[in-house]
């Protein structure tokens, strides 16, 4: 619309164009600066992970990702993510329903509290569980007496992972559910649907892309968390090491090629995450455009 406004005088049009964009050399140097910055900080780290992983050939690479300690680390990582992601997903949906569909006092405080784990240092996130469940912790003596091990064992790793990935799904869904309002659900309920039917048939289809997006981010963080898990794990090889902790041990033992080989698995996961994220964003945009068109037609 704005572009269709033309001036009679061609010189004036050109002047307007120059005044609302930059000269070509400015434009290309800004592009150059941005590309150089991103290449240095993003491309180079990715490139070095894969080139170092394969520096000693494919046999070293495959040996590194198939040795028993690496497999044990992969298994523990899958367990930690397999427990924390579904739990945080259920939490996220419940939080989105309560906060997005209802009005109550203290709403913004609750949202801030849900965001808390994001602003806490990963190291502190691990420490808080050591202070509760560790030998010198609040529940330590009781747990020791009952022979229950949480810190320096798998349960501690799961707890720390749950903490650091706690807000992901919720913070993705809350604004989405809020923006969608309650009219559609009210219509379904008035027409005789039960609460659960309304949720499954009306609410869930509306938020599915945001939900998927949150789960993808939550999973990436769950599998890659290092600081919090490092504090609670105790670094027992083959028993309480996740993939990132296994990488740290290999690296500190100067086994660079194996360290990067295992790291390349996580780098591939990161690339898959970015790809899935772009795909979901594209799908979500398509979906909302379709919805907008449909509501436009019904008016």
């Amino acid at each position, binding site marked *: 619309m704005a572009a269709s406004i033309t001036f009679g005088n061609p010189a004036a049009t050109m002047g*307007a164009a120059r*005044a*609302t964009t*930059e000269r070509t050399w400015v434009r290309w140097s800004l592009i150059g600066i*941005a590309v150089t*910055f991103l290449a240095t900080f993003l491309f*180079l*780290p990715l490139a070095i992970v894969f080139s*170092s992983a394969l520096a000693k050939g494919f046999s070293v690479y495959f040996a590194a990702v198939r040795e028993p300690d690496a497999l044990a680390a992969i298994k523990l990582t899958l367990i930690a993510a397999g427990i924390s992601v579904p739990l945080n997903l259920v939490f996220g949906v*419940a*939080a989105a*329903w*309560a906060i997005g*569909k*209802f*009005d*109550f*006092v203290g709403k913004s405080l*609750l*949202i801030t*509290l849900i965001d808390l784990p994001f*602003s*806490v240092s*990963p*190291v*502190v996130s691990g*420490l*808080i569980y050591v*202070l509760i469940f*560790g030998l010198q*912790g609040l529940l330590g003596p009781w747990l020791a007496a009952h022979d229950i091990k949480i810190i320096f064992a798998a349960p501690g790793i799961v*707890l720390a992972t*749950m*903490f650091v990935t706690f807000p992901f799904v919720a913070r993705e869904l*809350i*604004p*989405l559910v*809020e923006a969608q309002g309650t009219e559609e*659900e*009210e219509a379904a*309920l*008035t027409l005789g649907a039960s*609460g659960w039917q*309304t949720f499954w048939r009306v609410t869930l289809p509306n938020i599915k892309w945001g939900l998927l997006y949150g789960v993808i981010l939550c999973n990436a963080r769950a599998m*890659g*968390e290092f*600081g919090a898990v*490092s*504090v609670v794990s105790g670094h027992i090889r083959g028993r309480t090491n996740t*993939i990132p902790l296994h*990488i*740290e041990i290999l*690296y500190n033992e100067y086994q660079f090629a194996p360290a*990067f080989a295992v*790291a390349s698995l*996580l780098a591939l996961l*990161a690339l898959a*995450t*970015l790809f899935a994220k*772009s795909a979901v964003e594209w799908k979500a945009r398509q979906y909302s455009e379709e919805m907008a068109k449909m509501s436009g037609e019904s008016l």
Partner: protein
Amino acid sequence: MKVQLKQKSILPGFGLAMGFVVLYLSLLVLIPLSATFLKASSLSWQQFWHIVSSHRAVASYRLSFGASAIAASINLIFGLIVAWVLVRYTFPGKRLLDSLVDLPFALPTAVAGIALTTIYSPNGWIGRFLEPLGIKSAYSPLGVVIALTFTGLPFVVRTVQPVLDDLDKEMEEAAASLGANRWQTISKIILPAVMPAALTGFSMAFARAVGEYGSVVFISGNMPMKTEITPLLIITKLEQYDYAGATAIAVVMLISSFALLLTINLLQAWSGGRLKRGSREDVNPEIAELGAVTN
């Protein structure tokens, strides 16, 4: 009283959902966090102060906060340029770059840490060129800044991008037609409009950097008093079974992150307010939503 606390709605499930949210939040987050303060309260004020003001602790704050401030500033400047380039210009590979901006969110910090260390070590891809110039990048405070710049890179780009995207071109055209040159338009119209979002991104990058551990421990070299960040000091104290010391430092970190969280919320309220007061009558709901997403 009850009616006042919650507005009436015909939708079911508030009690169930709210009950679960509060229970899960308390068990996983609130109770463990308050346990830290409880543990710290077993220290006397003098003991607490002695630990948190020791030379080694103060040196670690200086490094953590100083390096985070520098890294966040680098991200502010380059983030504005990257966001501008991605929104306003077209060039080959733009979409790929755009999706790659989120890499620091997706790449595990330990992987980033060993990758950056290898790049900047004296015989690494970049380190070998810095070494002859007398610049020590890995195992020095500069290395800490590099790692923190990486981890905070997406924040400013992602907060500024939607604001730039939505900026009314008509305002720029109006400025231009009233005789402003391009630089005047940018500095008087565009920059003030994106500044709240940019500052929000800056403080998010800063807050993230202060607590960051994984990407820094490999590249910093971890020398006490010189390249030891505060989170690492907590780990060192834990490994020496000094639980009281670790807790005291953790309390300092927690208080600073709460203060930063408050700052970010205030900044966001400010940028939200600015948008509402803006020249457009219809406030795009998407911006409000994005503001909440990046919260």
